[in-house]
Each structure stands twice: as structure tokens, then as C-alpha cells.
């Protein structure tokens, strides 16, 4: 079952823990048995038949499939079961009855489009400013300093090749050569979530927003992307699925809200997302921006 904010009866378990203040669980987490997939400083990813659940440090914020827990609990066990409202990590049971459930859905646009467009322009300027040099925005559209850093011979050969390939792919996408471009971009980048896949996830989110806010029909394009860029990596699969469903993290919701608010909020929201991972956040935002501003990428 999918978690909702509806109250559930507590399950009496010996030694049951009450979640700490600020504890939050995403609304796309389903009951099931999960085993450890990967563990990092601030996150532990568990995989099961229902999909992926991430136990994360509160500093990462809420997401559709995240549960905020401190490091001791995140590292307590290599397996986990969720039978709402009970979360069991090894021999530790946590009562989820009263937790805050994060609503990951994207809100419909309530303002006139004219009010949003100037903020998209602000987003366009903020992204290269806050993106790390070694990231898609840093490479294809950053300042001259960004570009010189990413293209220097001392920058890793693999990374230079990877970002050059992604930049070529993005230019093809801008020319509407979707399949060719996606083949270059998908899975391109060294780490757990390759930069190219982060870009695609951001683009899919952008296409959902374009449909919801601007009444654009992007279903064909979304279909081509899903078909051309499949991934066997469960974390990427989860990213793509949530993007297509229009489910986003707390920080992305804040950014979307800021696109209808004042300039300062856009800048701060972009800055916060750009701080995610080595380049994941910035690459994701590059994909999102690509939906609305292909010239930005094509002209570099």
C-alpha cells in the first residue's frame, strides 16, 4: 500500500521507537521487504519488489520515496520491512503512525503564465552561476571559468569525453534528433546516477510541468524518451518513474513554487538543488531547463 497522511492504528511491539521530531516519509513508499542496495554518507538505498526506498539524512530533505533517519538508524541493518505503520530495521521497530507524510505531487499553476516566464529567465541565469564546474550546466553553458576548468587537460580524460558527448547529445535533442541524442546521453557519466540520466530525469520532470502548467502535449516525446533511454540501474529507474508521474523532491517543489514568486527565491532554490551530489542536482536542473529553453544549450 502507499503511505497516506491518514491516521493508522499503532501496532503494539516491544521496544517500539517513536520517530524523532521532524521525521518525514515520502508518499510513494509502499509496504514490502527491502534489502540494502547502496550506502553513502547521508543516504542508504534499499530495494525491494515495490521499488526503491531511501533512508536519508534530514539535510537532504524529503522526497517521494525517502524516509529521514539519523545515521545510527540508517546504518542499523542491511534489510528493512515496511508494514505500515511499522518500519522494521533489523531488531529496531519504528512506529510511523504520526509521521509527516511528504506530498510529492506538483501543484497546478495558479498564476498567469506571464508571471512565470521572467522567473524561468532568472533560473536560466542562476543555474550556471551555482552549478559545479564539472557538471552539464558548467560544461555547456557555464561561465568562461567553468568551461576552462572542465576542458583543461588536467581534468580527467573520461569526464571531458563524457561531458563532450553529453553536450553533443543535447545539441541533437535541440535539433529534434531525439533518438540519436538520447543514445549519446543515456547512462553517460561515471557514478551511481550518471550525469546523462540525471539530465533525462530533469527533462522528464520539465515535460510533466509543461503539460500541467502550459497545456503542452508532450506525451509522444515522453514515450520516445522512456523507450530510448531504459536503464537497468534501479535508482535511475526510480528517478525516471517519479519524473514521468510528476513526483518531485521537497527542494524541487520549492523551486517550482519559486518560479511563481520573487527573484531571490529562484536563486536560493537553484543553489540548494545544485548542492546535491557531485553534479546530480545541477545535471537534473539542466534537463529541467532544457524543456523551456533549448536555445540556452544550443548556442554554446
Amino acid at each position, binding site marked *: 500500500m502507499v503511505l497516506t497522511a491518514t491516521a493508522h492504528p499503532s501496532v503494539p511491539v516491544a521496544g517500539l521507537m517513536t520517530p524523532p521530531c521532524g521525521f518525514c516519509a515520502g508518499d510513494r513508499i509502499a509496504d514490502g521487504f527491502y534489502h540494502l542496495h547502496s550506502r553513502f554518507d547521508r543516504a542508504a538505498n534499499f530495494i525491494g519488489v515495490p521499488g526503491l526506498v531511501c533512508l536519508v539524512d534530514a539535510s537532504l530533505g524529503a522526497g517521494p520515496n525517502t524516509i529521514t533517519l539519523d545515521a545510527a538508524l540508517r546504518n542499523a541493518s542491511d534489510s528493512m520491512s515496511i508494514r505500515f505503520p511499522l518500519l522494521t530495521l533489523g531488531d529496531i521497530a519504528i512506529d510511523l503512525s504520526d509521521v509527516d507524510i511528504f506530498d510529492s505531487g506538483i501543484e497546478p499553476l495558479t498564476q498567469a503564465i506571464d508571471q512565470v516566464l521572467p522567473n524561468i529567465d532568472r533560473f536560466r541565469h542562476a543555474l550556471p552561476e551555482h552549478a559545479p564546474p564539472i557538471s552539464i550546466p558548467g560544461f555547456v553553458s557555464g561561465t568562461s571559468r567553468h568551461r576552462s576548468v572542465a576542458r583543461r587537460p588536467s581534468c580527467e580524460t573520461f569526464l571531458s569525453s563524457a561531458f563532450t558527448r553529453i553536450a553533443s547529445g543535447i545539441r541533437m535533442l535541440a535539433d529534434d534528433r531525439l533518438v540519436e541524442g538520447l543514445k549519446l546521453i543515456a547512462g553517460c557519466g561515471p557514478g551511481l546516477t550518471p550525469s546523462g540520466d540525471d539530465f533525462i530525469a530533469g527533462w522528464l520532470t520539465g515535460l510533466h510541468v509543461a503539460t500541467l502548467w502550459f497545456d503542452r502535449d508532450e506525451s509522444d516525446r515522453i514515450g520516445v524518451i522512456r523507450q530510448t533511454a531504459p536503464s537497468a*540501474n534501479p535508482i535511475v529507474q526510480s528517478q525516471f518513474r517519479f519524473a514521468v508521474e510528476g513526483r518531485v523532491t521537497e527542494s524541487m517543489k520549492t523551486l517550482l513554487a519559486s518560479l511563481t514568486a520573487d527573484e531571490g527565491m529562484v536563486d536560493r532554490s537553484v543553489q540548494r538543488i545544485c548542492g546535491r551530489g*557531485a553534479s546530480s542536482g545541477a545535471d537534473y536542473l539542466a534537463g529541467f531547463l532544457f524543456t523551456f529553453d533549448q536555445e540556452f544549450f544550443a548556442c554554446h
Partner: protein
Amino acid sequence: MPLIHSIKRGVYFDSVSLMRAAQMLSGLPGVSDASLVMGTRSNRDILALSGLDADDFNAAGDSDLLIAIRFESPASESDLLEQVERALTRRQEAGAQDSGIKPSSLEGAVRVLPGANLALISVAGRYAGDLARDALEQGLHVMLFSDNVPVETEIELKRLGRDRGLLVMGPDCGTAIINGTPLGFANAVARGGIGIVAAAGTGLQEVSCLISHHGEGISQAIGTGGRDLSGAVGGIMFIESIRALDADPDTRVILLVSKPPHPDVRRAIGDLVSTIRKPVVTLLLGSAEAGQPMTLEEAALAAVERLRMVQHSLQGKDLDSRSRGNDTVSVGGEVSVDIEAANALESSVATALAGRLSAGRRYIRGLFSGGTFCAEAQIILNRSLKGLFSNAPTAGSSELDNPLHSRGHTIVDLGDDTFTVGRLHPMIDFTLRKKRILDEAADPETAVILLDVVLGYGSNPDPAGELSEVIREAVSKTAVICSVTGTDSDPQCRRRVVEALKKAGAHVLPSNASACRVAGRIACSI
């Protein structure tokens, strides 16, 4: 060249871990290229284009880690794979052990440690300004380790700090010692009566260590960041720091270290210094002012001398300041440095080394991790040599066309952006320097390889272990001269490092200035 290739099924690492491991491998002797990437089709294509592909990589999937290492002997396959394993495991263990209290905001940190009165900020420059402003508004002094902070932000922060009576050390401030606590790259020096204000990190380290070697100590050492003395910033924090040391009862002598400031700033500092009753020693590295110290070593010794004068004066004894008659720096009746003996030592080392060099070897190649040492080397060498080149030219040197290749006498600052993108600072990561030492030794025109080795917190934990092998190889062709900045109380222990470097064949001099003088003597004698 042979290729090691390996697939680790279902193993996940973030891109930073993989990049670091690949960089570490690429820096190993005998390794020409290395990549660690997830096995997606795109990544396999890129490996193929780089000549790092292998047939069995075609069977890898998106969830598999690919390891490809191009190497030549003497590296062995099992050793390299073991190194990969160790690099990746270390990163995982570091993450697993990191389960203590870890505040995620400045407010959280202040709540966890309510008595704290200083924030050390080391985040990307674009975020550092906001964080520093928050810290100042919460009443915290700031040490801003970050660089790439806009000058407008620096001015705003420093004005705010001045108005609130708080120090803003930096941006780009690498070293400070506050109330005996070393911050950033600093050394375990003795505490004592000399307060230092410095715009240069390694300069501050050198003078504080030399003072410690000569039996005195540091009350406070305040870094300001190099841009503080520009006309735009106006020396705001340099001036505030001098005032702070003037008011500090534990500071008896004030030592100022910087490159020559903007003329207006210099005038403002001079005006302030003229009102201070404590002795002030000023080193403006690169300005040839009569009666002022010219090198970090001279500045440190002058401060020691002035302190001992103050101490003897307080004890009511007669002063016996510098006695030039016997070329000895004599302080309060105690001999601190015998200049004649130092000259004799430098001369004998230079003569012995010059005699061993084969014909054609005539140039100095300085490979510095400290920017101030690089500048000091040029200042000293340009007095006796002509035609110096550097990637950070000063004192009449010419700019190198290509910092990766030496020409003539070349002094390189390896901390320059050209060398540090995607790598740790050369005081921590010796990979490039080791390669360059071997390259320079192989150049038939190289007579002397001149090095600085900087110890202390934050620096490479085993510099002698890292450098010994390449020094041993280099000294079969050329002379290797170095200085070691640090103390025996540093984590690396200076004495042990010096012994190991000497054992490898390097000639270790007591200061960077001394090492440069010896290098200069050799070059002049050829």
C-alpha cells in the same frame, strides 16, 4: 602497454569516490591512465574511444562497476587491483564511521557547541559569502578558507566584521593559529610572545616554525588572505588584526608578513604602526627597503631578536643588540644564528654538489607547493641569476609559456590553478610533483631540483615516504635541495622527515631562503 580490466558486479559508488580513486591510480608510478565507471553503454563507448575497453566489458550492465587501468612495468596487476580495493574501501569506511553529531546548518552547529566564537568556512566560494555573513551576524569570528569569493563580498564582510569587532580571516586564508589552536594548514608551534599578521599562508607557516625553532613562540597568528592588501579592500583586516595584537597582553612583538601592499594601504598601515608602542617587524616580500628583512627567515629572526630585547629590557638588563662586527646575530648576549657558520655551511654544500654534476647541467628547477616560497625563491635567485622563468613571475622573472614545461632557470608554483583543477592541493597530493621531479631530473640541463616540503595539520601525512623514491632516482643525475617547514611536534615530526629525506639523498637546509641561496650558489658556480 598492458591493460588491467575488471568488473565488479552490483557495486555502487558515487562519482566523487570513483573520480578520486581514478586520480589516485593515474598518479601511481607506471600507470598511464585509469578509469572507474559504471558499465552503461555510453560509458563503455567512451572507454573504447580512450583505448580502455576490453571484450568482457560488453557483458557488463548499468549496475556493474568497470575498472580499467593502462600501465607499464614495474606495476603489477595484483598490486594495482589491491590499490583500487583499498581506495574504494577507505571511502566506504570513512562514510560508515561518520555517524557522530553532524549539524547540517550553522544554526545547528552553534546549538551543538554554544561556546564557539569562530567559524571556519570551507565551502565552494559562491556559497561562502552568505555563510560568512550569517556567522558574523551570530557574533562569530570567521576564517574563510574558501577562495573564489567576489571582491565585493569580501569588502562587505570585512566592513561588517570591523563594525562588530570581529575578525574576517580570508577569503583564501589557509593558515591561522588562534589561542594556540592551529587552523587550516598550520603547525604545532610553541606559544610565546610574537603575534603574526600575514597575508600569505605558507609564509605564516615558515615564520612561525622558524620562530619556534629558535626557542620562541607565537601568541596569535592571523591570516588575512592575499587580497586584503589590495586597493579595493584597503587592508581592512590587516589593520584590524594589528590593532587586535596591539591590544593583546600576550603579544610583545608584532610581525607583519605580506607582499608589497597597494600604496594607500601601505601608508595606512605605516600610520597605524607609528602609533604602536610594541616593536613591529615588517616583511614586505619583494620590496627592497633598506633596513627591513628581505626573506621570511630574516623576518623570523628579527622578531625573535626584538622579543628577546623586550624580555631583557623588562628584566632590567643591558641590551646588546645586533653585533655586526663578527657577523653574528647576537641577541641579548645569546647567539641565535652564526651568519659566518651558516655561510660556510651553504658554501660547502654548494661546492660539493656542483662538483658532482655532469657537463651541461646548469639550470635550477624549483617545484614549490607554497606560493610564498615560490615568490621568495625568485626574489633570492634573481639577485644573482639572470633569465628566471615562472608561472607566477615576480621580482623580474619572465612568465613561462607553458607551466608544464621548464625552460632555463624555472620556478614553478604547483599550487596554481593550472595544476590543482580536479586535484587536491600539492601540499597534500604529491602526484604531479613526483612526476615533475623525475621529468626534471631526466632533462640533461637540470642542475638542481629545489623543493619545499610543508608539514603540519592538513598537509600530506607522509611526505618523506612519498618523495623518497623519486628523490633517490633524481639524485643519481642531479642535485636535490629542499627545506622542510614544520616542527618536531607536527603530526609528521620534522626531525623524522628530515632524516628520511637526507637518507634518500636530498640536501635539507634549515629554511627556504637558505635552500634557495645554496641553489643559487651552485648555478653561479657552473
